[in-house]
């Protein structure tokens, strides 16, 4: 009996209206919040969250004050499912509504899947260069490269999550342990003035020459955090000293342990592919006599040793390359027009919106005509 009531509540139109109104508020609020917070942060706080929190300036605590996008999305999903189960009826008059709601359910599930599964990265290639990996903009990794063995380098990549915990990291392939003394999510790095007597942040590598200041996280969509980490490397014999790695420092720093040579560098997290992409040429066209961009396009060559493929493709605006389960879009370019930046997206559920659009569109049209035609007939008869 009680379960029935819960079900009726879940399937009710009143709940639909409440949920839709909440969604309206969240979308509006979240859009306004982008002005100050930036798109990325507003997205996470309003749409990709179960609750929207209120945090007074400078406070360390926060309280939930409004349901977030996930909560509303899930309730909406249950509401749709329950309503479909409760009122399901296959008739000409209602078939359109069934299509609409099934389409919406598909859309919601598809977007949830996108949120969970999609991976975005970028591939920056200069003309004449080739790459077999893309880089994550918002994640870094600590690469420890063993350069002793001569021509074949062995790379140990430590992901950002392991660094943020500021703990001790051990890897059987490394003769030393890495203690993350401090992780800077975003930082500014400056050269130490030797005359001032100021000390550098670390004892080894570039450490003595630079000082670091922790800065607020970037919220602007177009700018990225510049993380850094202060590391202490230890062997069973004792400490080797401290190193400071940062996205600001692109050059690798050297570590000697016995007769082994290593390089450490903090870099955007890499996603390797079983194929390479060469940039043959990049073109940036403008309309004559203006600065208005007409087209950006990258002529690339895809080489895949596994399949024996070796072909040329042009990637340009509104015409991405879909290859190997990933999609390559023309996203940006170097200011000297000699390099391209491709956005690389892996999204297994990319087709769901296409299906759901077709379903809902047909459903709405169906419903519209089912009412309009008899109405017009009546009017004509009058």
């Amino acid at each position, binding site marked *: 009996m009680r379960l029935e009531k819960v079900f009726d509540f879940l399937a009710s139109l009143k709940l639909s209206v409440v949920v839709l109104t909440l969604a309206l508020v969240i979308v509006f609020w979240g859009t306004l919040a982008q002005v100050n917070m930036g798109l990325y942060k507003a997205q996470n706080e309003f749409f990709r969250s179960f609750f929207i929190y209120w945090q007074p300036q400078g406070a360390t605590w926060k309280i939930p004050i409004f349901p977030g996008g996930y909560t509303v999305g899930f309730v909406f999903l249950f509401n749709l499912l329950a309503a479909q189960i409760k009122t399901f009826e296959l008739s000409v008059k209602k078939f359109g509504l069934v299509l609409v709601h099934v389409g919406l359910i598909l859309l919601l599930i598809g977007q949830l899947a996108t949120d969970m599964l999609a991976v975005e990265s970028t591939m920056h290639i200069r003309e004449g260069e080739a790459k077999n990996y893309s880089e994550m903009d918002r994640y870094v990794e600590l690469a420890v490269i063993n350069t002793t063995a001569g021509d074949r380098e062995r790379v140990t990549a430590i992901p950002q999550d392991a660094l943020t915990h500021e703990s001790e990291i051990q890897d059987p392939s490394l003769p030393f342990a890495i203690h993350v003394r401090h992780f800077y999510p975003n930082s500014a790095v400056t050269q130490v003035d030797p005359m001032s007597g100021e000390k550098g942040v670390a004892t080894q590598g570039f450490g003595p020459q630079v000082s670091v200041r922790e800065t607020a996280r970037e919220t602007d969509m177009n700018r990225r955090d510049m993380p850094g980490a202060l590391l202490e490397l230890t062997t069973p014999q004792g400490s080797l000293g401290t190193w400071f790695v940062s996205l600001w420092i692109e050059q690798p720093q050297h570590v000697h342990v016995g007769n082994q040579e290593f390089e450490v560098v903090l870099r955007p997290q890499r996603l390797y592919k079983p194929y390479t992409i060469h940039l043959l040429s990049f073109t940036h066209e403008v309309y004559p006599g203006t600065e208005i961009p007409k087209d950006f396009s990258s002529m690339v060559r895809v080489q895949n040793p596994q399949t024996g493929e070796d072909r040329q493709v042009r990637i340009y605006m509104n015409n991405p390359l879909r290859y190997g389960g990933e999609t390559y879009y023309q996203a940006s370019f170097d200011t000297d027009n000699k390099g391209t930046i491709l956005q690389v997206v892996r999204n297994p559920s990319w087709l769901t919106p296409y299906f759901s659009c077709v379903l809902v*569109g047909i459903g709405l049209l169906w419903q519209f005509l089912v009412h309009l035609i008899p109405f017009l007939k009546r009017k004509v008869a009058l």
Partner: protein
Amino acid sequence: MKKFLPWLVVGVFAAWVLAGLLPSTEKTFHTREFGQLPVLRDGRIQPLDSVARNSLRQLRNRQSVLLENGKSMSATAWLMETLMKPEAADDLKVFRIDNDEVKSLLKLPVGEKYFSFNQLRPNYNELSKEGQRIDQIDSKHRTAFENQTIKLYSATMLYQRLKVSLKPAGTDDFAAELKDYEAAIGPGAAAVSAQQQGKSYDTNAFDTIVGFLSDYNRAAQFATGLFVPPTNPAHTHQDWKTMGAVLMDAVRGEPLPPAVGAYAAMVSSYRHNQPVEFNQALAKYRLWLDEKMPAEVRKGRQEYAFNFFDPFYKATVIYVVALLAALAFWFTWGEWLRKSAFNLVVLAWVLHTIGLAARMYLERRPPVTNLYSSAVFIGWGSVILGMVLERIYRDGIGCVVAAIVGFVTQVIALNLAINGDTMEMMRAVLDSNFWLATHVVTVTLGYSAMFVAGLLAIIYVIRGVFTSSLKRATADGLSRMIYGIVCFATLFSFVGTVLGGIWADQSWGRFWGWDPKENGALLIVIWCAVILHARWGGLVRERGVAVLAILGNIITSWSWFGVNMLGVGLHSYGFMDSAFKWLVLFVASQLALVAVGLVPLKMWKSFQEEADDAPLPTPAPAK
């Protein structure tokens, strides 16, 4: 007699429209033919008349100049003066300044609105200093004064660039000067090369050529618009050049294209007030163009015809008349008025359609490419809906809606046009006719429907509260209209929004990115769903749907304009200061109407007989 009146009314207006097409002859300078000459500007071939109109819009928000003697000067006539006799153009009051602080910066009288360049000249340094300072400020953070100052500053820059676009500064008799220049090139080039090698050289020849070149170089750097067409048969848009650039090229031994001589002859005869010689030179140049680049000439002529016929302006006038007729019908219930109103709406809509089609043909684009054209298209779609409603219900409501939305969207479009060329080229990511035709058109039709539903709701509330004319049958009819139009809006907004997502997936790699414009479209879809479900669930009835539909106006206007003003996201087209003020006023007015709509039914002038006894009947089940 009354039977023919509606046809007579529409006949009069049709005659007025057609009268605009009658040919007329020009006695002195052939301004019209000059206005048709093609140039390459803003990345596209356009007639000089479009250059003139777009420039004037930026300078004074209008497409013509009002002279001090009360006469009007056509855009092309003004452009001819500016290009060929700039010292005289400097006295024409073409700069509109509204802001008193800007006037005081330039020490101008506060009581006036239009100023000549010569009036700005004494304190131009102040303007230029401020303009350069403000240019560094992010447009989001500019004050009203700063916005107006930079607007005036860019207008003066544009004006000064136009002044050197055809005739180099300091040139008087261009045709004669051209001959001197050609004669000076040989000895001048020899002198320059000798000077560079440290040998003795002819100082006279050296000074002469350097004198020419310094003027021409300035013209090459500052000119706006590529006036000189290429001569090679296999030319592209890349080959068009500025007058200054071809004059500079001549010193390197390149022959001067025929256009230079032709324009020089026109400049000389214009300056010496010799219309016959001017018209001859113009005709000769047009003959050459006809032969060498028929496509560009055609484009120039067609766009000129569109500018000249100005179908949108004529449609706007007729919408106003139609509105008056339809409102008069509500007071007198003379059926001939309603029919006249309907006929006029149809006539205006035909003009509206001609304008839209002409723009699509000229641009080779779907109807909506920018905010300006979205306003025109929203009006067009709404008028169709209004006409359909009028055909079904025959109660004047459809006519009122069609005429109001038709008129208001034209006014909005006119105000959006002051930023310059409304047929601007599409930025790379937007350069896709397929998506512009599908996503943009459907979303825009969704806006149309929302505004029509909102306006119907306003009519419901105003007639219900302030008059007793809202009879049960009319109210039911209105309510059904609102409901039907909201259903239509749901269909178009949803499909349009999802198509937008799919376009985003195609060009940016994600279906949904919570970009403000995407969110705006989503809000409309959600709001439609709220209205429909609230009605089906019995949470609201007739009046409630009307109030919700008025709130829909706010959401739609926010989605159309408001999100662009946030200055964030991929769709932001810059902060629009003056539009913001209007948006706030609009939202306030809609909230006031919502408040009126929420007044208890007892206080409504209509429905008095039913308010006391029975509650409003619930609407028939929707499904």
